[in-house]
C-alpha cells in the first residue's frame, strides 16, 4: 500500500527537513520512498512544502493531488491542503500558529502546539521535529525507534543539536499519545 504525507508551512520552518527525515526512516525500514519538494519561483511566496510517499511496492506517481496525511505548520498551509487529505488521514495542526481547525469530520485531527513546546525546550527551531514526532506517533507510518535513529543521524555532524532534537522528539510523541 502507498501512503503519502504532505508537510507544509513557511520557508524557514524546516519543512523540507522533516519530510526528508521521514523518507529516510521509511527507507531504513525497507519501504520504497520518494520525497518531492515544491520548487521554483513559488518559493518566493514564502511557502514551503514537500510530499513524502511511502510504499511496499515501487512508487507510481509521487505527485498526488490527495495525500493521505498532512502536517500543517502554518495557517495558509492548512487552509490550502486540509480539503485535499483523504478520508481517515491524520492531520497534524501546529496549534501554536493556527487557531482554526481542519473543518473536516472524516480525518484524524491532531492539534499540537509545536512552537510552544519547542520554545519550552529552548528553541522554536525544533517545532518541526515536535510536529514530525507527533505525526509519526499518531500515524505509526514508520517505527518510532527508526525515526529516533534517523533524527540522530541527521544531526550527527552537528552534535550539540542532538539533545534538543531528541527532546523535541519525545515531547512530540508525548503530545500525540496524550490525546
Amino acid at each position, binding site marked *: 500500500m502507498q501512503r503519502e504525507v504532505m508537510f507544509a508551512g*513557511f520557508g524557514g520552518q524546516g519543512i523540507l527537513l522533516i519530510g526528508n527525515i521521514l523518507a529516510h526512516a521509511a527507507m531504513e525500514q525497507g519501504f520504497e520512498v520518494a520525497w518531492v519538494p515544491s520548487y521554483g519561483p513559488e518559493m518566493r511566496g*514564502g*511557502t514551503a512544502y514537500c510530499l513524502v510517499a511511502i510504499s511496499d511496492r515501487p512508487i507510481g506517481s509521487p505527485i498526488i493531488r490527495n495525500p493521505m496525511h498532512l502536517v500543517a505548520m*502554518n*495557517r*495558509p498551509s492548512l487552509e490550502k491542503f486540509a480539503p485535499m487529505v483523504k478520508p481517515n488521514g491524520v492531520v497534524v495542526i501546529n496549534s501554536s*500558529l493556527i487557531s482554526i481547525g481542519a473543518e473536516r469530520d472524516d480525518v484524524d485531527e491532531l492539534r499540537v502546539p509545536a512552537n510552544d513546546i519547542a520554545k519550552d525546550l529552548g528553541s522554536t527551531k525544533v517545532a518541526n521535529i515536535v510536529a514530525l514526532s507527533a505525526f509519526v506517533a499518531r500515524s505509526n507510518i514508520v517505527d518510532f525507534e527508526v525515526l529516533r535513529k534517523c533524527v540522530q543521524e541527521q544531526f550527527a555532524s552537528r552534535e550539540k543539536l542532538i539533545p534538543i532534537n531528541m527532546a523535541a522528539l519525545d515531547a512530540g510523541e508525548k503530545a500525540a499519545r496524550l490525546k
Partner: protein
Amino acid sequence: MAYKHIIDNDRCKGCGLCVTICPKNVLEMSEDVNSMGYFPAHQARPDDCIFCTTCCIMCPDVAITITKVVEETEASEQ
C-alpha cells in the same frame, strides 16, 4: 493635522525598511501576522510623524500611503 498616514496591512511584507529609515522613529514591526504570514509595520508613535514621505519612498511594496485630509477651503484653493 492635514495628512493621513496609512500602512496597508495586507500589502506590507514586514521587511522593516521603513522602520529603520524613519527619521522620527514613528514605526515599529507588529506582533500579529497578516494574511500573507508576515508581521507588518505599524505606527507605534503616530504623533511624532512629520509626513515627510521617507517611509513611502523606501517601501518596496507601496504599502504606505499619505493622503491629504482635504478641507473645503484647501480643495478649492488648488
